[in-house]
């Protein structure tokens, strides 16, 4: 365990150090890249809760990422145009306040995850993969065909939303927000994994029948995990939308689901810092390979294939050894 802990500390320090250096060296683009790493890592941490801990291979997490993004887009666009979201039966105004937006993003994506989970957790294995993928696609088509919030073109927000006491338009301050949120969520998910809930969930992944025999309802366990997982990915979606000041149906595409899963796998499944390492590696590859060739996804595909076939522990598995039991 010690090598993995050292790796985690080093990674946290690196993710903080690089943008700080970029801030001093006045390289805002690097800060933006680091912010993307933090946000993608957050989305991955969300998925890892379902995938790593619960063994739920969801290929539909783009739905929650997108819902988080649209929660931000809808609230901020109404605040931007001073038009209320609804007036009857009671008045709801838009908002430009980040904490409020995060809350709405998490609640709405948690609700969507609850509903999708309620249906798709009735199935297992390969059915579950196909059903989550299909529901994700449903949100994509809905976002495209619903014209009220931009339809296919998406929604632009002119000014980044505000956080009390900070200037969020300053890249380093916005990075700090994302970094702190990532840290909080990592702390939460580490505590969760060691809680009785997390242990039971992990047990249900390894042998559902045994967990049921001792009287734990695995369906409810998984539903809660899936809902929490959706909420965290939704938060990441809201931050991602705020980073770009733009939301579009692309956030809902199946490629997004696949990429969130890549973050988790490149880093190492069911490792706490797996998604952080994976997202960092992904952005690094995008930066380096994307500079070399327009077709860098080919290299990404080959790398991913090699990781799946030959290095199943991901980056952390390679660097820190295989200490997590793989079932």
């Amino acid at each position, binding site marked *: 365990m010690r090598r993995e802990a050292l790796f985690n500390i080093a990674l946290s320090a690196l993710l903080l150090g690089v943008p700080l250096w970029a801030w001093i060296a006045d390289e805002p683009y690097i800060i933006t890249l680091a912010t993307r790493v933090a946000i993608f890592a957050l989305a991955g941490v969300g998925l890892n809760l379902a*995938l790593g801990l619960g063994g739920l*291979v969801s*290929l539909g997490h783009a739905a929650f990422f997108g819902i988080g993004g649209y929660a931000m887009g809808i609230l901020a666009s109404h605040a931007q145009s001073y038009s209320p979201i609804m007036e009857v039966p009671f008045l709801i105004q838009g908002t430009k306040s980040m904490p409020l937006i995060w809350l709405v993003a998490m609640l709405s994506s948690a609700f969507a995850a609850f509903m999708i989970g309620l*249906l*798709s957790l*009735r*199935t*297992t*294995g*390969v*059915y579950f*993969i*196909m*059903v989550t*993928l*299909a*529901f994700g*696609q*449903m949100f994509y*088509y*809905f976002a*495209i*065909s*619903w*014209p*009220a919030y931009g339809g296919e073109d998406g929604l632009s927000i002119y000014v980044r939303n505000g956080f009390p006491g900070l200037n969020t338009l300053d890249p380093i301050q916005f990075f700090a927000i994302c970094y702190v949120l990532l840290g909080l969520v990592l702390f939460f998910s580490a505590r969760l994994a060691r809680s009785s809930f997390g242990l039971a969930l992990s047990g249900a992944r390894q042998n559902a029948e045994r967990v049921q025999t001792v009287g734990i309802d695995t369906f409810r366990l998984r539903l809660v995990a899936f809902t929490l997982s959706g909420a965290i990915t939704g938060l990441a979606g809201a931050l991602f939308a705020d980073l770009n000041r733009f939301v579009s149906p692309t956030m809902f595409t*199946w490629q997004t689901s*696949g990429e969130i*899963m*890549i973050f988790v*796998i490149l880093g190492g*499944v069911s490792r706490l810092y797996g998604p952080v390492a994976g997202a960092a590696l992904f952005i690094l590859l995008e930066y380096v390979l994307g500079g070399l060739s327009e*077709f*860098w*996804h*080919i290299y*990404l*595909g*080959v790398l*991913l*294939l090699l*990781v*799946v*076939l030959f290095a*199943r522990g991901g980056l952390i598995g390679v660097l820190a050894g295989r200490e997590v039991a793989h079932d």
Partner: protein
Amino acid sequence: MSFILFIEQVLNGIQFGVMLFLMAAGLTLIFGVMGLINLAHGSLYMVGAFAAAAVAKLTGSFLLALVASLGAAAAAGALVELLVIRRLYDRDHLDQVLATFALILIFSEGTRWIFGSFPLFLDVPELLSGPVTLPGGIQYPLYRLTLIMIGLAVAAGLFLLISRTRIGIRIRAGENDREMIAALGVDISKLYTVIFALGAALAGFSGALVGAIQSVQVGMGEPVLILAFVVIVIGGIGSIKGALIAAILVGLTDTLGRFLLPVFFNTFMASSDATTVGSALASMLIYILMAGVLLFKPSGLFGEKQG
């Protein structure tokens, strides 16, 4: 809304459905026999369409283009099976998802590299272009009618292949007990390659056929792949019959939903609102259908037990 228009939409729905069936049949066979979920099936659809478009441009013959689509997709399928897929049979589904996702990235970007980002066009052959008059005075494009015929013929052929031929017996045996038929002396790895290539050929074939009424472009396969997944979830994994019925059900639901829902909402809403609400709801209709099936029959209409 005229009756003739309605019949036309029904035919469109059936045509959409039989093409989905060609995709879903390969997927469900591959899953049924090898226990593998193949996300790259959409890429094989794309390979077929591109091969057809390239050959049609070179030779001008649609028939040769179709042969090329079958050949190219089957070859790509066999190659991928030999190089990658066979290492995945005894891995868990997560590894299969990731490896085949990686294959999508390689196929899509590779195709973009070779053919560029602009869509190619595959023309409907002259012999089959133009409308045909059906009984009752309905004018319907001959090409789409041909697609229905081809789809149904392929479905019949598949049923015969599986129920009457030696390879069909092996496929069914493989679905029941993989280890046992290997122990009985059947070369199981060759059988797997053949089945994978067969599924790939079906996907490539439908890619070429549909490519003539839509454009041939990178990324064309994945939306169809996801629809084929919906078909399989509704029909039940491993059941060819289920796949056929579910495919036509999905095709009809989607096409008629897009046609009828705006009309339905128009009866009590303003016209522009009705179009908005109707088309937004229509885009979700097949997923709602899938949700309904999941509620009552989680393993699909014709599926047996889940694995």
